[in-house]
């Protein structure tokens, strides 16, 4: 594989006296799906928020395409090519798919010196991009509200890819979905990976991770428990690591000391 698109080295993040991340290192290569696993409160959210520019790390370095990077806000990260697809809050149900697809980035066409919305172009691109992802819409004017949860995730992913994402962060994309819809989203992840985009897949479902992941990093209480390659690790092992497993005994005395 080539050089990593993004390298997060020894990232620490403290909120006041709370240490959310205590030195986490993760790198993402183009065309790989890097699964970030962890139980609730493990620091997954804090970590991806640091990656997408919402938080600034307390210590540690971020290299984007080999250069050191410091994102001031999410917009910087977005412009660099780091896109985040949230589980909720990505689509507006009452609006059509094409209007959602181009929300905030509408194509315009000049007529009489005024910038008008280029609806035709928006419709065509939407249909084309959705077909690439394997979703056949009734029409670009179909409301997002009529799509299933999995299809909505796919629209959001297709949108991020179309607008030039190099790293795609998926925040628990499958946690609220049924089996078939999950399969659709995972196949979308696979299609995105094939286009050379690095995917960061956050989940606490080991099965979903194993189905599509190339590498797996387990976070536990703000620390990495190591990164494993596909085929080097089994379901049970990952699951134990996530839950604390053999470390549980060690953790119990610490409970209550550090707070949440």
């Amino acid at each position, binding site marked *: 594989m080539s050089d990593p698109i993004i390298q997060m080295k020894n990232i620490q993040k403290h909120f006041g006296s709370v240490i959310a991340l205590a030195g986490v290192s993760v790198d993402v290569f183009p065309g790989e799906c890097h699964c970030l696993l962890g139980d609730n409160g493990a620091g997954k959210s804090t970590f991806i928020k640091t990656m997408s520019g919402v938080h600034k790390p307390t210590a540690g370095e971020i290299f984007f395409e080999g250069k050191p990077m410091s994102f001031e806000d999410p917009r910087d990260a977005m412009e660099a090519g780091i896109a985040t697809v949230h589980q909720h809050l990505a689509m*507006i149900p009452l*609006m059509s798919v094409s209007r959602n697809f181009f929300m*905030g980035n509408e194509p315009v066409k000049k007529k009489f010196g*005024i910038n008008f*919305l280029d609806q035709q172009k928006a419709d065509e691109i939407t249909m084309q991009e959705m077909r690439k992802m394997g979703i*056949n819409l009734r*029409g670009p004017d179909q409301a997002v509200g*009529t799509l299933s949860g999995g299809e909505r995730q796919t629209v959001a992913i297709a949108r991020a890819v179309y607008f030039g994402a190099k790293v795609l962060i998926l925040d628990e994309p499958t946690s609220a979905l049924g089996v078939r819809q999950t399969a659709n989203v995972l196949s979308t992840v696979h299609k995105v990976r094939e286009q050379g985009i690095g995917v960061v897949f956050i989940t606490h479902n080991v099965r979903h991770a194993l189905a599509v992941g190339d590498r797996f990093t387990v976070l536990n209480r703000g620390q990495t428990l190591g990164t494993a390659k596909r085929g080097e690790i089994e379901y049970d092992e990952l699951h134990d690591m996530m839950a604390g497993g053999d470390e549980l005994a060690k953790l119990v005395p610490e409970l209550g000391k550090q707070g949440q």
Partner: protein
Amino acid sequence: MTGSTQAGVADERIKETSFIRKALIRPELGGIVGTIAVFTFFLLTAADSGMFNTQGILNWSVVSAQFMIIAVGACLLMIAGEFDLSVGSMIGFAGMLIAIFSVTLSWPVWVAILLTFAICIAIGALNGFIVIRTGLPSFIVTLAFLFILRGFTIFFPQTFERKTIIGGIKEAAEGDWLAPVFGGKIGGPIFTWLGDMGIIDVFERGTRAGEPVVDGIPMLIVWALGLVIFGHVLLTRTRFGNWIFAAGGDAEAARNSGVPVTKVKIQMFMFTAFCATVFATCQVMEFGSAGADRGLLKEFEAIIAVVIGGALLTGGYGSVIGAALGALIFGVVQQGLFFAGVESSLFRVFLGAILLGAVILNTYIRRLITGER
């Protein structure tokens, strides 16, 4: 839609959408059906009362146009997810400002008008700013301004002129360049010609004998149509229109996608204030006076017109054309009941009934669109 959209394998669980269902999810549907129903009703019951001769048409057109002007602003604001209950008070307030500037202070009328627009739009922006900053419902914030502005509207003329109605604006506006833009009429020669040709009624006797009874289209109607076209194009054909839908549909999702939600909402509050001021200026120029009770209940009438026009009270969905049709239904029914000789208080009964019907229909349509069950 293009033929190529059907290229893939169709999902056997999705039934073909019927034409009726497709028409149902267009926001304007209620407005179109209502308009046809209302016109049919009055053509059958009041056709010989003069409602559909030139003066009759002008009569309900002017009333409808008044509703339309404020409905366009209320419509865009509602789609952006907010309300403005201070519209009615703003109308009274704006009219009073013009009167005080031009009559009490004897400033040129064009200065009075421009200054009033600036002040009212600034108050609209303040409304929006408070709503966005505090996160309070716009219902409460603008309810406060309903009382604040109405209070000033009564306080100013009593303090400066010792009365609640200030007249003499027509005289002050004589020869002013800006006043005719709101109080004038256009198309005079066409109406004179139509009168000469015997197509429309002319005065039989008196000083104006031979002149057409209707001698032009009031600027109020021109403003109404202009604002409807502007609002419709803005909403459906521009990026900004997409942002209006997005801001009202889900402000958080819109922000995540890079839509400047705060800016959009504040600008819509400003636009609503602009529309209210246009209404007030036209009214003041027509009557030649400003009264402390002008514009009472107009905020609710605007909202009802918008809801009849298919917009959802929760934002994110609606149509300016629908709102304009809602305003037309309003104007035609209000004046039509008069022509048909029906007790005018029944108009309120009609309003309440049609509002309830429209909201129930809209809720059903919303379920159709979003697939909720």
